[in-house]
């Protein structure tokens, strides 16, 4: 079997056109899930009544079931019970599904990092009269983030690749286009390798940004 190198090269720019979908969906989901995970982790730390067991259930469900199943239930299952949900577009469903799923993982990452912040830091904040929320925002969270960044980077890279699952909802992201390209040309290896190179490039860039961020956050501790 021959490898059509020209086709491989030609498919790169064709696929690159759709990087913005993969990247856009991943970044937006990352941000939404980050916000949700902060709420989850605050509930966890305060052991808020009623909400605490619910948040544990949430995390358990979204970590314990396949993302594909969650996307199916969200996009196809729920509209059969609540017909008004059928107005949801595949982009919206993808963003909601990925965000809800990823928040469960992020909240566990954040929980671990927050536990790693020395307890005297909270004491110091309270002793100067700060509220718990001010303490979290100004002192505890920034310190936890430093510990969390490597895991967050890992999580984001995972999210980028998982976003390809949203093709079942009809969101044609970059891997979907590679599949269709392959189906059209019968050049599977070429198309898939092209998309692999693009994914790899993305993660290299993200890894670079992550290390820069890590360096910045490390400054107070050098």
């Amino acid at each position, binding site marked *: 079997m021959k490898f059509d190198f020209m086709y491989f090269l030609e498919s790169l720019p064709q696929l690159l056109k759709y990087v913005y979908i993969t990247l856009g969906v991943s970044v937006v989901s990352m941000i939404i899930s980050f916000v949700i995970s902060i709420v989850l982790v605050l509930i966890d730390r305060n052991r808020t009544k009623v909400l605490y067991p619910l948040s544990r259930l949430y995390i358990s469900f979204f970590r314990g079931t396949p993302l594909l199943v969650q996307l199916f239930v969200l996009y196809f299952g729920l509209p059969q019970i609540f017909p008004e949900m059928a107005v949801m577009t595949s982009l919206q469903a993808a963003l909601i599904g990925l965000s809800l799923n990823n928040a469960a993982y992020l909240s566990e990452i954040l929980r671990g990092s927050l536990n790693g912040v020395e307890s*005297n*830091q909270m*004491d*110091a*904040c*309270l*002793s*100067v*009269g*700060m*509220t718990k929320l*001010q303490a979290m925002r*100004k*002192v505890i969270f*920034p*310190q936890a983030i*430093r510990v969390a960044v490597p895991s967050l980077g890992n999580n984001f890279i995972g999210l980028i690749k998982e976003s390809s699952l949203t093709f079942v909802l009809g969101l044609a992201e970059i891997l979907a286009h590679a599949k269709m390209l392959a189906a059209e040309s019968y050049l599977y290896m070429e198309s898939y390798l092209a998309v692999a190179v693009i994914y790899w490039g993305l993660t290299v860039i993200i890894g670079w940004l992550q290390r820069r961020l890590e360096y910045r956050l490390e*400054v*107070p*501790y*050098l």
Partner: protein
Amino acid sequence: MISVQNLHKSYKDNEVLKGISLTVEKGQVVAIIGPSGSGKSTFLRCLNVLEQADKGQITIDDVAVDIANLTNKKTELLRHKTAMVFQNYSLFKNKTVKENITMPLVTVQKKSQREADSIAENLLAQVGLSDKENFYPNSLSGGQQQRVGIARAVALNPYAILFDEPTSALDPELVGEVLQVIQSLALSNMTMIVVTHEMSFARQVADHVVFMAEGYIVEQGTPEEIFNNPKQERTKKFLQQLSVEKQLVVKELVI
């Protein structure tokens, strides 16, 4: 005036404070001494409400609180009356030396950044750390960190400053510089409660010495009374033990 009446605190079945009552006049320097586990630190933390006592009354300046019906609002008011200096310094690790001092002023006391900056610069000059204002805590020695900790507490302009074994974590050669700062504060008429193991310091600086053991105040009085004429057996035993330990340390050093 600081007035504490019948303060109790337990952790599960372990009663740490068994009814502490104490009065501290404005401008007074009170040293609390006693064996470890006697409840000294817990007492200070209860005054700052880092720990909530189980029952008792606390009055600091114009804020009077009965622990039985402590509200969030009251907690806040009481906390604002005191500032704390910790054994392990507890500086904000993600903030520079200067930010450690200005951040509470801006976020809690709503001072302008400029005003906070000038307060910080002033105090850092007083504790001899002007050249370190943009350093992070991790790059300072323990003695320097503790001096920043004291400056942070003073900046808040509290009614009283609570010192929780401020020199216990320091290398011996760094103890002096910190004690010097505390001593100069005492001279400026700041109300202070100092939990300490430095007996010579307590003797020199304190107006009033409190000896605590097993959750009680066993004896209190002037440094003269406590160190030279202790009345209670428990106090005598503690002071004797200390001098024996000191001799042992000296012996070890000689050998």
